[in-house]
């Protein structure tokens, strides 16, 4: 009962802050910019991926450049940067209050510290989900509105995947759900850093740095890291949303509607992310329960 009250208070605080709307505004703006770019220069963008094949195949630039394709492009560009927007809110959850001097007032109230942390985590998660819903509205429905729908082509490093128009929408929803899990991991980490800190910038910067470091380690693609860090790095698994756009094919090379290539790896990635969320949350709760509030 108290938990619900706390959650409502946290949400109220989040959505009364101007900084919250920076994130929503930024997303809307990036999406619109990408949409504009692809509306005007869609062919050039596609050529980036298909250049090596333009001698062998007729590339149907126009039909490829549909709403689904644009949405995937937007997600590719945007989801890498959304952790920053999540950190901006979640990283400020505890340390921001320490800075304002409200943490000592709140903790001195008849509420449990564990409850407090969990309500802040839950509120961050809801914020993440709302960001993604917002993104879905602009990037998915907006793109469908502007570009129409159609078969989806997804480019990977060594192959491309074509999916039937009617086999695409569920993939977006699955991808958004997965992205929510991935970004919740970031929120949990930012919240943990936030519990350790008494200024609000530190945890935000720390979160973003961790994401950058692991992303770089992952992109280096050297065996040293591929075999040691990467299988357990959460940035590796955060990309799992892309897995829903990798379709399985028959021996004859025909894709199977409704299939996902190696779904077991997606289950594993989701498991790893959940594990991280639990780990971060446990550390945060245990630390905060014993913390002397000196701010």
């Amino acid at each position, binding site marked *: 009962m108290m938990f619900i009250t706390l959650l409502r208070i946290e949400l*109220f605080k989040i959505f009364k802050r101007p900084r919250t709307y920076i994130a929503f505004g930024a997303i809307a703006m990036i999406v619109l910019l990408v949409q504009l770019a692809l509306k005007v220069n869609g062919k050039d963008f596609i050529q980036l991926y298909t250049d090596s094949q333009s001698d062998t195949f007729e590339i149907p630039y126009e039909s490829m450049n549909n709403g689904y394709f644009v949405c995937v492009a937007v997600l590719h560009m945007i989801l890498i940067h959304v952790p920053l927007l999540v950190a901006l809110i979640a990283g400020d959850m505890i340390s921001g209050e320490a800075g304002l001097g*409200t943490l*000592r*007032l709140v903790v*001195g*109230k*008849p509420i449990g510290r564990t409850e407090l942390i969990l309500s802040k985590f839950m509120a961050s998660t809801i914020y993440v989900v709302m960001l993604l819903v917002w993104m879905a509205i602009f990037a998915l429905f907006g793109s469908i509105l502007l570009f129409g729908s159609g078969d989806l082509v997804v480019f990977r490093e060594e192959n491309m995947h074509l999916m039937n128009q009617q086999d695409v929408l569920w993939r977006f929803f699955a991808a958004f759900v997965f992205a929510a899990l991935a970004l919740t991991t970031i929120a949990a980490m930012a919240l943990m850093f936030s519990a350790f800190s008494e200024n609000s910038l530190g945890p935000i910067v720390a979160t973003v740095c961790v994401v950058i470091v692991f992303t770089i380690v992952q992109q280096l693609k050297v065996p040293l890291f591929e075999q040691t860090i990467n299988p357990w790095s959460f940035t590796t698994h955060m990309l799992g949303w892309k897995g829903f756009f990798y379709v399985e094919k028959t021996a004859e090379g025909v894709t199977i509607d409704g299939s996902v290539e190696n779904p077991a790896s997606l289950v594993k990635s989701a498991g790893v992310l959940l594990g991280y969320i639990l780990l971060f949350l446990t550390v945060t709760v245990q630390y905060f329960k014993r913390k002397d509030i000196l701010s």
Partner: protein
Amino acid sequence: MMNTIIRVKNLSKRFGDLQAVDQLSFSVSAGEVYGFLGQNGAGKSTTIRMLLTLIEPDEGEIEIFGLNLRQHRKEILKRTGAVIERPDLYKYLSAFDNLRIFARLSGMKASRKQLMDQLEMVGLAERANSRVKTYSQGMKQRLGLACALVHDPGLIILDEPTNGLDPQGIAEMREMIIRLSRDGGKTLLVSSHLLSEMEMMASSLLIIDNGRKVAEGKLDELLNPKTALVELAVTDTRAARQLLGQTDWIHNIHEKSIRLLRFEMEKSRIPELTRLLVSGGLDIQSIRPVHSLEEYFLAQTGK
């Protein structure tokens, strides 16, 4: 009728090398304004934070409303209100929203009217919907007080409530504190390093230094102890010192300045002191018992 609201026994807290609070014991009675005095860094804030469960004590016991704080934390905190140092509150929210949040956190579902009444009481009703970041320090302090009082707590803990206020703000805060105690029947624990303030509102006093208790008692007793500090102004301090040194009822004589001696003695013997000085042929310029709490405090803590 329960008389003791706060009972603290052998409370200690250490931060690294610093013994912030050292075997501190005290008790606060119902309905009084309990002054908690000490210089900055004396351990007042640490003690108050332990009372509010913000800091976990290393040792010692705290009972509030007759209940063990560790075991009945929520129950106790529901009946306690606190303002700790200068809260900035949620700057991006209005006063009304801030107040509503703290009411909810105290487990109270306050109506709009209740909240507005509370703001009215601290004189912020007109600015209820302005964001707190537009408030002056005094307004924030009053809003902080409103937030601490919104759920009508029996115990009110105020840590340095007059810090950063202008003289008018200080006077207003003082009046509010006195009114809460006198008219509202609340028990208040008020910390300050502004001793003159304490003198004007506290009924009991705890003085701490380096985390240790220096003195505790009713303000009257502390201000009018049997042994008083007396300041004597004479033309010949050397002769006076010699003369006074010969008695066994005058102690701790030292020269405060070239014409001023300070010593301890029973107040009742001041006439006897006068006779002694006159009979010794000394020209008395003044004899003054030291009353001010500040002087008392400075004398006690030796600073």
